[in-house]
């Protein structure tokens, strides 16, 4: 399941992860540490919603 940032629209794709932010490809959104931030706008994990 992909997750979209409600602040800037950036999409978290588990297949790609966020290598710059220390999130390996294949990491499920639920498994990302709570203090992780959106790489584009710095929003927190709770600012993300499942993509429809």
């Amino acid at each position, binding site marked *: 399941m992909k997750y979209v940032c*409600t*602040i*800037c629209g950036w999409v978290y794709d588990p297949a790609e992860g966020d290598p710059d932010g220390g999130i390996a490809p294949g990491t499920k959104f639920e498994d990302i540490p709570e203090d992780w931030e959106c790489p*584009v*706008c*710095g*929003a927190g994990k709770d*600012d993300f919603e499942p993509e429809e």
Partner: protein
Amino acid sequence: MRPVEIKEGVHWIGVVDWNCRNFHGYARSANGTTYNAFYIEDEKKVLVDTVSKGSESQFLCSLAHLTKPEEIDYIVVNHLEPDHAGCLEKMVELCKPEKIFVSVMGGKNIATFFDSKDWPVHVVKPGEEVSIGKRTLRFYETRMLHWPDNMFTYCPEDKLLFTSDAFGQNIAASERWVDEMSKEMVADHMQQYYANIITPYSSKVIKTLETFAGLNLDVDMICPDHGLMFRGDDCAFALEKYMEFAKQEPKNKATLFYDTMWSSTERMISAVASGLVSEGISVKVMSVKANHHSDIMSEVFDSAAVVIGSPTHNNGILPGMADALTYVKGLRPQGKIGAAVGSFGWSGECVKILNEWLEKMGCDIIEPQIKAKNRPNHDTLKECFQLGVTIAAAIKAKTAK
């Protein structure tokens, strides 16, 4: 305009754009705007932001009163958008700066605006400081206020905070300070600016304001990149206003916007407005033909309810409504009550489509959705009036909380 010394050795070198009426191609700026930039004279000579490209000659002329471009050592780029970095390429060429300071996201994006590979770009970490002689400049990331790259620059010795787009207003004036003009007028322009530019990032605004409150910075001047600057007590006023805007607390007010061909939808909207007014709600009734989408947004912003109307046109809604709705929805106003009405001739999709917009805007939808075939008769108009009364009750329940 000539430079204005705002602190000893710190100069406003902005440009007043008296004729700007359409800010960045989407928001109305009926009172023009300004692009504020600053020059700091210390052991290092520093330029903080520039102006839009079209104002380059005025900017260079203003700077020439103070220094020669080649004397400038550092350029601070608080924001890459072309209204602030429009002269950056020219300035880099003329100044040959030792360093160009940008935020982390600025560093990631600068090469998409400029051929900057040979520029001395220095990416600052949040909170990083640089000494420029007697003074220090400290940089704070303020992502999404309103682009990913925005940052604030703070000078502790002068208690100065350069805030880029935050706290800005579209006002062209000979005055430079909020305390030289009517505070209500300024607050109104701050709100228009916020409504049209910052609304979608309100949760980031709250977090940023909380972070700054925690930092306990000593600030006695807030210098945004558009409009008038705040000094003394007005700094607290700027911060309070932003917190108020970010919370988006609705007023006892409804905005009704609509388009119409033969006035049927207009009459329905008018009846809903009467119902609202009869219950003591303040209304703004706005035809999309008479009002620009950004003025509609400025009213929607502090309204508790939006009522929208359009006739059915080619199995859809009128294009003026699509324009206004695209714009308003894009700014993601929160927590509104919504209702829709419209007239039709045969297929009658209008109200269903309007309702989908309201749903996408996350509105609490009030029923019934009223449709009238060709002309609303007396009973339909009574129903519309009653809808206004129902919405009024919902507004009162909401604002009472």
